[in-house]
C-alpha cells in the first residue's frame, strides 16, 4: 500500500489549517486595533446569552421561514462534522470508515441520519438561493448588497450544495464497489444512477468524491475569513460579549466626567493647570475612524451576516433615508480591513492614507438620520449593535468637528442657556401648575 495519499492528505490538511490560522490571527489583530472595553463581567449571564442566542438561535426565529431553514443548515453542520472527523482520521491513517467497526449496527443509522441532514441542507440552501435570486427579498437587495456582498452570499450556497453533493455521491458510488460499505438511506436511491460503470471508474469516482468533499471543506474553511460566513465562528464570542444592559443606556464618557467634575467643583482653581501628563495621548472624543471604535464594535463588524434584518426594521431606512445599519457594519469592517492591509503592507505600522470611516465610508447624512430607536439592535440575530457606532460617530462630529446639523446646534444652545431644548426661560418651568 502506498503512503502517498496519506502524505498528500496530511500536507493539504496542515496547509489549510495553517493558512486559516494565519488569516484568523490577522482578523484578531485587526479587532484589537479597537479601543479596550471591558466586557468580561458576569460570565454566567454571558454564557447563558451565548447559549440562547448563538447555540439556541433564539433571535433567528423572529422570521420563522429563515429561522427554520437556517436551523437545519446550522444543526446539520454541527452534526455532520462528526463525519468529517472520521474522514480526517481515514485520510491521515489510510483507514476506511474508521468508526464503522466500533459502532456496529449503529453506524448505518448514524450515517443514514447524516445523509438525511445533507438532503435537508440542500433543500434549505436551494430555498435560501431562491429567496435571494428569484423572489429577491427586499432585505437582500439594498444598495450595500451589490458586488462582493452579493457574490459572496451566493458562493456560500453553491459551496454548501457542492459539499453535500460530494458526500452523498461518495456513499452511493462506494456501495457499488464489491468491497465497499453498503449504501445508506439516501445514497441507496442515488446509487442506481452510477450503476453500469466499470469497477475502475467507480473506484476513481469514489476517491474523487472523497477528495472533493474534504478538500472542499478545507477550502471553505479558508474562504470564511473573506466572507460574511465567518459568522459561523464569531457568532459565539460576539453573543458572549454582547451588551447585557438595558439598550437605552448609553455609555458615559469617563474623560468628560472628570472635566465636568472639575468645572463644577467650587474649590477647584480654574487656573491651576493640571499636571502635564506627557504619556497620555491626546484622546479624541468619539470616533472618526475605525480604530477609534472599541474592539467590541470591530468584532461586531466581522460577525455581521449581512442578513439585513436590522435595515429592514430601521425607521430611517424604511422611509427612504440613506441610513442602513447593515451598511454601517459593512463599512466598519471594510475600513478596519483596509487599515489592517495597510499595516501589513508597511511592516506593521499604519501609513496615513488620508481616509477615515466617517466621511469616506459613512456620510454625515447617514448618521444624522438615526432616531436611536434600537430596532436594529433588537433585530440582530447575532447581537450586533450598530447604534453604538452611530453614536460614537456623532460624538466626533459634534464635539470635535462642531458639525452637527444647525437645528441641533440651536437646540443645544438652548439646553445650555435655559435648561430646555427650546428657547423658554427656566423661570417659566412651573407655569403649567397655575395655568
Amino acid at each position, binding site marked *: 500500500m502506498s503512503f502517498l495519499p496519506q502524505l498528500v492528505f496530511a500536507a493539504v490538511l496542515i496547509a489549510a489549517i495553517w493558512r486559516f490560522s494565519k488569516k484568523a490571527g490577522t482578523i484578531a489583530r485587526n479587532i484589537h486595533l479597537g479601543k479596550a472595553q471591558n466586557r468580561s463581567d458576569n460570565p454566567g449571564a454571558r454564557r447563558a446569552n451565548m447559549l440562547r442566542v448563538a447555540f439556541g438561535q433564539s433571535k433567528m426565529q423572529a422570521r420563522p421561514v429563515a429561522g427554520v431553514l437556517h436551523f437545519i443548515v446550522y444543526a446539520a453542520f454541527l452534526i455532520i462534522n462528526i463525519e468529517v472527523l472520521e474522514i480526517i482520521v481515514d485520510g491521515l491513517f489510510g483507514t476506511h470508515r474508521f468508526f464503522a467497526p466500533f459502532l456496529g449496527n449503529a453506524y448505518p443509522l448514524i450515517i443514514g441520519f447524516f445523509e438525511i441532514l445533507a438532503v435537508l441542507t440542500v433543500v434549505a440552501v436551494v430555498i435560501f438561493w431562491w429567496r435571494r435570486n428569484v423572489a429577491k427579498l427586499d432585505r437582500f437587495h439594498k444598495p450595500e448588497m451589490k458586488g462582493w456582498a452579493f457574490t459572496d452570499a451566493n458562493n456560500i450556497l453553491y459551496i454548501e450544495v457542492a459539499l453535500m453533493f460530494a458526500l452523498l455521491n461518495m456513499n452511493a458510488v462506494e456501495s457499488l464497489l464489491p468491497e465497499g460499505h453498503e449504501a445508506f438511506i439516501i445514497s441507496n436511491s442515488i446509487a442506481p444512477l452510477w450503476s453500469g460503470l466499470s469497477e475502475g471508474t467507480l473506484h476513481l469516482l469514489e476517491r474523487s468524491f472523497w477528495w472533493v468533499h474534504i478538500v472542499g471543506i478545507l477550502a471553505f474553511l479558508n474562504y470564511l475569513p473573506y466572507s460574511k460566513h465567518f459568522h459561523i465562528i464569531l457568532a459565539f464570542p460576539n453573543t458572549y460579549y454582547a451588551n447585557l444592559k*438595558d*439598550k*437605552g*443606556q*448609553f455609555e*458615559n*464618557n469617563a474623560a*468628560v*466626567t472628570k*472635566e*465636568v467634575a472639575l*468645572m463644577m467643583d467650587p474649590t477647584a482653581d480654574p487656573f491651576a493647570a493640571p499636571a502635564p501628563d506627557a504619556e497620555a495621548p491626546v484622546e479624541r472624543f468619539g470616533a472618526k475612524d475605525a480604530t477609534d471604535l472599541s474592539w467590541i464594535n470591530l468584532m461586531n463588524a466581522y460577525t455581521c451576516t449581512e442578513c439585513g434584518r436590522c435595515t429592514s*426594521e430601521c*425607521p*430611517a431606512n*424604511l*422611509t*427612504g*433615508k*440613506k*441610513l442602513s445599519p447593515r451598511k454601517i457594519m459593512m463599512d466598519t469592517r471594510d475600513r478596519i480591513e483596509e487599515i489592517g492591509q495597510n499595516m501589513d503592507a508597511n511592516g506593521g505600522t499604519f501609513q496615513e492614507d488620508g481616509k477615515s470611516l466617517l466621511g469616506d465610508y459613512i456620510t454625515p*447624512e447617514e448618521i*444624522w*438620520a*438615526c*432616531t*436611536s*430607536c*434600537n*430596532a436594529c*439592535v433588537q433585530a440582530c440575530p447575532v447581537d450586533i449593535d450598530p447604534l453604538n457606532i452611530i*453614536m460614537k460617530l*456623532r*460624538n*466626533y462630529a*459634534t*464635539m470635535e468637528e462642531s458639525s*452637527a*446639523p444647525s*437645528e*441641533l446646534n*440651536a*437646540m*443645544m444652545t438652548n*439646553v*445650555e442657556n435655559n*435648561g*430646555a*431644548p*427650546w428657547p*423658554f426661560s*427656566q*423661570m*417659566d*418651568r*412651573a*407655569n*403649567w*401648575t397655575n*395655568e
Partner: protein
Amino acid sequence: MSTLHVPTLAQMTAEGKAPEVLFWVGCAGSFDDRAKKITKAFAKILQHVGVSFAVLGTEEGCTGDPAKRAGNEFLFQMQAMMNIQVLNGYEVKHIVTTCPHCFNTLKNEYPELGGNYTVEHHSQFLNGLLKAGRLKIEGGQFRGKKITFHDPCYLGRANGEYEAPRELLEKLDVELREMRRCKQNGLCCGAGGAQMFKEAEKGTAEINHVRADEALETKAEIVVAGCPFCNTMLTDGVKNREKEAEVQVLDLAEMIALAEEL
C-alpha cells in the same frame, strides 16, 4: 373637579415635609402646550389618589438626553451633574416621569454620575398604585372603544417595559388592537435621537406618517401613546392623513384622567 395643587420640592422641604415621590415633569411636559395637558392629567391622578408628590419647578433642567443623543456628551454631563446636585440636595429617592426619555436617562445614565434613584415611567407607577389597591380604574367613557397602543422606543425596546401600559389599558375595558409592529418590533415615531429638533434627512416618506398609517390600519378610534414626543409625532401623522376628526391621540394618563372624570 378639584383644583390642582402642585407643590414644589422646595416648598415641601421648607414645611419640613418629604413627598412620597418626585414628579419629574421634563421639558416637553413643562413647555409644550400639548404635553402640558398630559402633565396636568397625571398630576390630577396623583392628587386624586392621594399620593403626596412634588415637582422641582424652576430647579428642574433638561436631563441632557437630546444633547447626548446629538453627540454632545459634554453638555449632557453638565446637565446631569446640575440635576444630580439638586436631586441629591433634596435627598430624592423615588422619581416618576411622564417622559420615557427622561425616564431612561435618569434611570440608566445618572447612576454612574452619582445619581441613584428609583425611577419609574408613569405607566409603571400607576400600575403599582393599581396593584396596591390605591388606584381604581373603571372603563368609564372608554368602555368597548377600539384603541391601539404605540410603544415608545425608550420605554419598550430601551427598557423592556411593554406590559405596564397594556395592563392599565385593560382596566379601562377597551378593545386593544395591536399594530402590525408592536412591542419589541414597534416602529419608532421618528422623534428620538434628537430628531424631534431637526428636519428629517431626504427620503421618500416621514416616519410619523408611516407609523400613523399603521395605527390607522387597526381601525382604532384612539391611538394611545406614553411619551409626549410620540404624542406630537402621531398627532401630526394622523392630521397628515386627515383623520384627526375620527381618531384621537391620547396619553395613558389622559385616558385614565378622562375615564375617572378628573
